[in-house]
């Protein structure tokens, strides 16, 4: 596959039928692939989440279906498909049936504009982040629709809480992203990532180019790091994840806005939640963690292998305090290190990671997915660590703490970005 063939991964695909048919078929194909990816990813994530929860609570989690329960997600999916579809007597039947699709569409529309690999998205647009914020906010309507049409007060309260929470937390999230737009000067997701391949102002050891020091999170340290934390908290709230899961707080509202849903319709809410987790993590990755850029592009594969071996040995030894486990862990870590080092493509001739060759393209997708799934892991980790907020505490955190902090942060980043201009103006004014 040549670089130009990679570039033509964009749609419309040239399938070879009539061009109009090609266009609609490629839309269908892209959506088909994405929807199925979401379904499988959400299913596997539930299994991973339950396993992590189990181990954090000193139990084993799902264990019956398949080896160590690895087929549990398929069994769950089958169960959801076969469950009876119940529609209550007091529901508004039209809106009740419609709302799962509206909620899911709000999440799914984001997926077509995420930067999955070097310069590659299902569709590219120069207003990327604006589009993502816009369609993500459209999902709220579906939640309100679900809560109201259920004809159940718990569902209605859950929906009102969810809408209030999502609308409120859009403010600090939008402000932090605005601050990052000062830094990168583009709404285009890929342009934002390309900006992070250069422009490091400091570093512990010199990177030939790019690398972790030029990523958004370390660009204007510590302000962009604060922005990242605000964004991540806001993202947790917007996806209704613990500690912000008051819209579906079991102990207060049964299950919130999807109380009345069962079977396949319920699973759409479920898919939308996991799809939203991916989307907010992908936006965080794009703006703060360098998107599809490798973290240490000048470190050779051997460096990864050695680091992996040492880390594996340390984990193996600390886990059991036995030399054998340290050896085993070292071997496993060594293998993973070699794999990561091999996937991390060697830099090109001019030293820039452009993602235009096939190894770099694969490396880009690998790093993007690795960063996104790390952030999703942190979300799961927090869910099983922190208790739930109360409604008033949640609003207090948003409006009295995060929003003012985000404003101050915005000002600081703006001043840092324009420091040459205002410094020149200030000194010129002082000199007279």
């Amino acid at each position, binding site marked *: 596959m040549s670089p130009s063939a990679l570039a033509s991964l964009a749609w419309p695909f040239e399938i070879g039928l009539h061009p109009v048919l090609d266009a609609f078929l490629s839309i269908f194909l892209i959506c088909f692939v994405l929807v199925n990816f979401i379904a499988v990813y959400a299913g596997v994530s539930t299994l991973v989440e339950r396993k992590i929860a189990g181990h954090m609570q000193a139990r084993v989690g799902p264990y019956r279906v398949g080896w160590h329960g690895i087929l549990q997600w398929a069994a769950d999916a089958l169960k959801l498909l076969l469950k009876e579809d119940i529609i209550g007597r007091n529901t508004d039947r039209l809106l009740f049936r419609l709302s799962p699709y509206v909620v899911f569409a709000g999440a799914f529309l984001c997926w077509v504009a995420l930067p999955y690999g070097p310069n590659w998205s299902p569709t590219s647009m120069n*207003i990327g982040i604006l589009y993502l914020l*816009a369609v993500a*906010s459209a999902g709220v309507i579906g939640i309100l629709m679900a809560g109201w049409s259920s004809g159940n007060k718990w569902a209605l309260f859950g929906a009102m809480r969810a809408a209030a929470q999502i609308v409120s937390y859009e403010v600090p999230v939008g402000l932090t992203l605005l601050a990052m737009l000062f830094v990168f000067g583009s709404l285009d997701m890929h342009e934002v990532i390309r900006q992070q391949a250069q422009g490091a102002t400091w570093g512990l050891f010199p990177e030939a180019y790019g690398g972790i020091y030029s990523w958004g999170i370390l660009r204007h340290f510590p302000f962009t790091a604060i922005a990242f934390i605000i964004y991540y908290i806001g993202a947790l709230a917007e996806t209704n994840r613990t500690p912000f899961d008051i819209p579906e707080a079991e102990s207060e509202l049964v299950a919130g806005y999807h109380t009345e849903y069962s079977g396949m319709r319920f699973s759409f809410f479920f898919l939308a939640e996991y799809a939203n987790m991916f989307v907010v993590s992908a936006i965080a990755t794009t703006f703060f963690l360098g998107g599809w850029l490798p973290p240490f592009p000048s470190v050779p594969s051997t460096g990864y292998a050695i680091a992996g071996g040492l880390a594996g040995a340390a984990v193996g030894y600390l886990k059991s305090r036995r030399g054998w486990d340290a050896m085993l862990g070292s071997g496993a870590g060594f293998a993973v290190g070699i794999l990561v080092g091999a996937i991390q493509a060697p830099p090109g001739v001019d030293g820039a990671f452009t993602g235009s060759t096939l190894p770099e393209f694969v490396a880009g997708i690998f790093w993007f997915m690795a960063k996104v799934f790390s952030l999703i892991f942190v979300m799961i980790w927090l869910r099983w660590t922190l208790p739930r907020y109360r409604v008033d505490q949640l609003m207090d955190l948003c409006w009295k703490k995060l929003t003012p902090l985000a404003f101050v942060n915005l000002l600081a980043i703006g001043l840092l970005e324009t420091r040459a201009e205002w410094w020149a103006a200030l000194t010129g004014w002082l000199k007279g």
Partner: protein
Amino acid sequence: MAASDIVLNVVFYVFAAAAIAGAAGVAASRNIVRSAFALLAVLFSAAALYAVMKADFLAAAQVLIYVGGILVLIIFAVMLTHRITDVNVSNESTPGPAAVFAVLCLFVALGVTVLFAAKWPRGPEPRPAVAGGTDVLLLQYQADGKTGLGWGKGATHEDRAVLVVRVPRAPEGVEEVEFQVSAVPGWRGDWVRRRIAGGEARLELSKLPSDDPATPKVRENRLHWRVKLRDREGASRPDDPFDEQVDFTVYRGVTEPAARALAGPFLFAFEIASVLLLAALVGAAFLARKEVKEA
């Protein structure tokens, strides 16, 4: 008709129908909450229509503000002001025949005005650049993929660009036009020579291979074009009017022009509109407060 036009036409009719159906739902539904939800179809379809017209920024802003903000507000208001658990809150008023007639007349008048009187400028106006008494008009610029929500082969950051320059009154002996494209500030591209045929010269740039170190990466939202006139031997004329190198700046997409318009000529109108919204907000707070006092 090009394939992309057919696709856009199909999408246009689908969303136009959805918008009309949604509007009919808003007006005809007996249930006020359903009316509010039917607005979703109207507003979303309007955004899709903007996207079909390649006004991608406007489309995203429409969804962000109207669907994500105002519609949520309306639904909240409807839910909070009525007995929300009662599904049968209905809209009982029906328009009289006079009202129907008046509205129809207005609609027909609007339609006639739009069809016959309104001027619809097609595409950007040619931008003249005059130097040494010779006009060079930038006629056409096209960069698919960056201008519409998702239409076109624009997955990489380089696009196909077409530049047509009209030289209506070429000086004696001038037969060719040279173009210089610069996309990155400070970068100077090669001069590309094109013949003037019928007073026009045309340059097409296809997607630049990004791994070729000689080609620039189009990282800006605009391209700079420079034009020179050459005679048949390729010698620069001693009186070449374009040795001063006239720059054409062409914007890709609509975000930047929209931003410039909002922060430039329309800044005052923009701020006045926000003052109006503030007044509405203060008024709403005042009304709500008064009600509480009386109770």
